[in-house]
């Protein structure tokens, strides 16, 4: 056995570039596969850690929402369930400005706690032991980093401005970087006694957040539903739900999965071609082994062992690299994903990066590597084993270059399936089937490229003959006849298509953002403001510089009955007089007329994306599921808009209020002729007590762009990695093809081909390969792009794809450049080739 092992290891170390290439491709695909699986875990872990840092061991929380009559409530009714409760504590939340000096004012989130009650749910770990026996009066606890940054010590006094009143607090303790203060510096919390904060806000002993820890977590669901009945207009929920968790990473995880599929496809191709050459090279040895009595099975096993070793080595290294990739991905995008979630108070960009994965994910990825390597190499190995022993021993192998008709039919069949499938798959299985369609598309491209190449070269022969003379004709014939060039065309096509797919997805998302913000005709956007009513909006309107205010009722995630769980991401109750002044949408028809129609019954206008997704037209009816029950709406028209990423509907203000039971506005659009930032600050100051969430529209667009940019920088980067793996594969093929072609080139030289002519011919071949590869890549890319909306819809995300146009020329150019650059070394080598040596020694 050790001889065989030695033999295999020697084989692997002998052909360094090829072994490197096989390992490299396995490693990259495994790393990506691993990180696409584990990113959800990691971001999830960061998310849950953040949730935990704020909520501690809370199982259920109660807080006000836009329907609550007052942000404050009494905890009496919670007491009725004391049998089930381990501990409960009430919190008053507010905000304060800390005036450090004239130029620097910082906004802190004030957490008013009852020290002993809060300690039972979330630990406060203080430095030193100078803490007063009783946490009462004007005392404050700040975090270590904040203390260091502003030179604050225990016993110092801080001036905090709250609700327009200046109050001095004494620092009673400085907390270590744990619990609430885990991300201190990025989050800004100050803990004060609850009574003190409550009296500043006039809460009258009430709280605006209650944290409950249950005796048994199994009761959580039941407990929530029971408690909800007591707190009808308040939110009773777990700190976070599974859905919230998976929605954080859905797009990124899928993007990664698709990229790992693309790279895996290229890897399969690379390993397959490498093993084809490898088995041929090994033939004399195989023959010798077999002539001395080894069975075909034994020689097969040796080669399979070799491919398994590649799989194991690549799998191990790939998992290691995957951890690195995961770390980088989480660092770059994790906090963006987290900050999109608003359920954690004081949540913001930055913070600790933690990666997390399961042993199963690691094992799964390792298995993926081994299987990838094994299935890619098994076909060449089996093919070789079918060759009769006599022919092997006599090295009498004819490589058949026949293109079978079966291959053509299979190729056409699966590309057709991938084309007509996606619109037909039901929502419940589309997540999986659409990914399969991507795999199918790539497989079809690989199957069909030999035929596409044949067809193209017939055409190119004519064109090149005209442009480049007879060398052009010869080059075209070579492209058709050369397996290596056809292989390179495949590799280039897959590389280019992944580039196109990712660029298009990114470009389309950016276009959707641009369109969204272009249609918003106001300057400041309040995205949440508790208890916003008419008096509050009037009060906003009275702020200097505010020219007009439009408050709106906006419901989110309204399920649509009979659609396997599809929902409307956003549903606006609109004031027909004002909506048009604030949102410039592309209506299908007359906007005013459509909006007027909303008042004549339960009528809805949908974003045009929904027209296709829900398969509805004007006059169709859809049933929306509201907490109060199902309501049938008639579709009266469509608007081309990217609000809610296209998962959007408009109904009348009254219908929305009736059906959702909403009492307060939750989005407020503000027009101003003055500096929007100043207006934003004014609002923040004026409503410090209710903590509105708001941004200027310019800022919001920028933030959205940044978040998107990060994600797509990564996915684009990965598509470039895909291209690089393809290029490596191409170089490998060119090395193989040069060895194979040496003889032919020598013959051509012997009948009078000059160096110049050889270089010319090799470059024309490269141009032809580049053209065909780029064209095939563009075609495949467009097929894949067509799949994007379906794949996203399967995750309940919507995209209106902006089909690339001019950028395709750039892609084609990149393809040609790669192909031509890759041909430089073979061209030079070919021209320098010594005729006699090449003819004599093969």
């Amino acid at each position, binding site marked *: 056995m050790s001889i065989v092992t030695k033999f295999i290891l020697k084989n692997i170390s002998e052909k360094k570039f090829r072994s490197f290439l096989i390992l490299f491709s396995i490693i990259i695909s495994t790393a990506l596969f691993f990180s696409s699986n584990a990113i959800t875990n990691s971001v999830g872990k960061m998310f849950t850690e953040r949730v935990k840092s704020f909520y501690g061991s809370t199982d259920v929380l109660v807080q006000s929402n836009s329907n609550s009559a007052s942000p404050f409530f009494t905890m009496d009714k919670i007491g009725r369930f004391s049998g089930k409760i381990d501990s409960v504590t009430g919190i008053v939340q507010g905000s304060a400005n800390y005036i450090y000096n004239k130029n620097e004012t910082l906004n802190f989130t004030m957490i008013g706690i009852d020290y002993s009650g809060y300690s039972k749910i979330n630990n406060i770990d203080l430095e030193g032991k100078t803490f007063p026996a009783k946490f009462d009066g004007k005392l404050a606890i700040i975090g270590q980093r904040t203390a260091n940054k502003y030179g604050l010590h225990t016993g110092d006094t801080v001036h905090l401005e709250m609700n327009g009143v200046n109050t001095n607090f004494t620092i009673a303790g400085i907390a270590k970087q744990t619990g609430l203060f885990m991300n201190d510096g990025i989050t800004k919390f100050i803990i004060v006694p609850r009574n003190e904060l409550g009296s500043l806000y006039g809460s009258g002993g009430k709280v605006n957040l209650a944290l409950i820890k249950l005796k048994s977590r199994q009761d959580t669901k039941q407990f929530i539903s029971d408690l909800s009945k007591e707190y009808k207009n308040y939110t009773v929920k777990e700190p976070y739900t599974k859905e919230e968790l998976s929605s954080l990473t859905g797009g990124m995880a899928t993007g990664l999965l698709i990229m790992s599929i693309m790279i895996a496809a290229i890897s399969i191709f690379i390993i397959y071609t490498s093993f084809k050459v490898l088995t041929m090279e090994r033939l004399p040895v195989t023959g010798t082994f077999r002539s001395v009595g080894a069975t075909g099975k034994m020689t097969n096993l040796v080669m399979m062992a070799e491919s398994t070793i590649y799989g194991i080595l690549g799998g191990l290294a790939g998992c290691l690299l995957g951890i690195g990739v995961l770390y980088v991905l989480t660092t770059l995008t994790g906090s963006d994903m987290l900050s999109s979630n608003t359920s954690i108070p004081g949540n913001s960009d930055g913070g600790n990066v933690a990666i997390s994965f399961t042993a199963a994910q690691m094992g799964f990825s390792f298995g993926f590597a081994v299987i990838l390597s094994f299935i890619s190499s098994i076909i060449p190995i089996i093919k070789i084993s079918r060759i009769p022993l006599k022919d092997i021993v006599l090295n009498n192998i004819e490589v058949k270059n026949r293109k079978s008709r079966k291959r053509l039919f299979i190729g056409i069949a699966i590309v057709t399936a991938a084309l007509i499938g996606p619109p037909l798959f039901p929502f419940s299985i589309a997540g999986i089937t659409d990914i399969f369609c991507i795999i199918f598309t790539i497989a079809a491209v690989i199957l069909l490229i030999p035929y596409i190449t044949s067809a193209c070269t017939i055409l190119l022969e004519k064109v090149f003959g005209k442009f480049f003379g007879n060398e052009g004709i010869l080059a075209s014939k070579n492209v058709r006849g050369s397996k290596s060039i056809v292989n390179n065309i495949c590799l280039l096509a897959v590389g280019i298509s992944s580039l196109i797919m990712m660029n298009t997805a990114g470009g389309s998302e950016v276009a959707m953002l641009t369109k969204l913000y272009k249609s918003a005709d106001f300057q400041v956007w309040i995205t949440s403001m508790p208890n916003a009513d008419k008096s509050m909006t009037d009060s906003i309107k009275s702020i200097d510089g505010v020219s007009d205010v439009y408050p709106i009722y906006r419901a989110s995630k309204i399920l649509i009955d009979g659609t396997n769980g599809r929902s409307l991401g956003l549903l606006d109750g609109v004031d027909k007089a004002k909506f048009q002044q604030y949102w410039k949408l592309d209506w299908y028809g007359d906007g005013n007329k459509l909006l007027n129609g909303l008042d004549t019954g339960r009528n809805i206008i949908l974003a045009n994306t929904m027209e296709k997704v829900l398969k509805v037209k004007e006059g169709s009816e859809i049933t929306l599921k509201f907490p109060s029950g199902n309501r049938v709406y008639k579709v009266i028209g469509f608007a081309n808009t990217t609000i809610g990423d296209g998962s959007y509907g408009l109904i009348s203000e009254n219908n929305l209020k009736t059906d959702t039971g909403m009492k307060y506005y939750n989005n407020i659009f503000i027009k101003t002729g003055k500096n929007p930032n100043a207006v934003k600050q004014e609002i923040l100051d004026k409503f410090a007590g209710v903590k509105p969430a708001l941004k200027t529209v310019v800022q919001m667009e920028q933030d959205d762009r940044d978040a998107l940019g990060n994600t797509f920088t990564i996915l684009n980067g990965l598509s470039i990695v895909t291209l690089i793996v393809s290029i490596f594969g191409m170089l490998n093929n060119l090395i193989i093809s040069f060895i194979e072609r040496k003889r032919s080139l020598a013959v051509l030289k012997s009948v*009078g081909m000059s160096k110049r002519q050889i270089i010319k011919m090799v470059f024309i071949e490269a141009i032809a390969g580049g053209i065909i590869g780029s064209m095939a890549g563009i075609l495949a890319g467009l097929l894949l792009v067509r799949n994007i909306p379906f794949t996203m819809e399967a995750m309940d995300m919507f995209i209106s794809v902006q089909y690339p146009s001019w950028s395709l020329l750039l892609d084609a150019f990149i393809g040609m450049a790669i192909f031509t650059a890759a041909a430089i070394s073979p061209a030079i080598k070919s021209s320098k080739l010594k005729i006699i040596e090449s003819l004599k020694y093969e």
Partner: protein
Amino acid sequence: MNSSKYNNESGVLIMENVIEIKKLSKSYEMGDTEVKVLDEIYLTVKKGEFSSIMGPSGSGKSTLLYLIGGLDKPTSGTIEIDGEELSSMDDKQESIMRRRKVGFIFQFYNLIPNLNVEENILLPILLDGKKMKNHKNELDEILDIVGLTERRRHTPRELSGGQQQRVAIARALINDPEIILADEPIGNLDSKTGTGIMELFAKINKQKGKTILQVTHSKEAAEYGQRIINIKDGRVLLS
């Protein structure tokens, strides 16, 4: 082009030297030692001559032929083809010489597998930048001579050894070169096929007046020509 000249006074045909080799040596370095394969060879071949090089294996026959065909470079000495020094040619001139002046035939045919019979034959024409369709007549004629008219669209893989060698011969003839160099052209064929090829050579030599220089091991094959050049240990033996 008529390269033979008549002496005006006597009217006697004076044969011109098409190949003129002087003091030609070729050696290979094998580690520290230098192996002399050809040792100061002098040789002239006249136009229209059909000569055969004979000698033991490893005596340098192929090497000599390759050097004459410009497929390899000598260590020292000169080779003139039609009065032109090979070593003074640049790559382009040398390539043109290989296309137009010399046709080379190998023992193992050396055809291009992805081109069909016609295309293989037309290679020197193609490389000369000429249009294929302008040479249809020559092609038909040559296919007829080598007896492959029916196989013109076949690929080399679909042909027997003898047929492949005839394609190689046709390729060597298509551009109407003055000199045919053949390295053991029938060494890999059965004797019947070999005889056919030799008859073809004799025919080309007589009818078209081509200069033929072949390497052969067979006395019978050599007898198709007019002259035998014996080589041993890298030297031409006086005959």
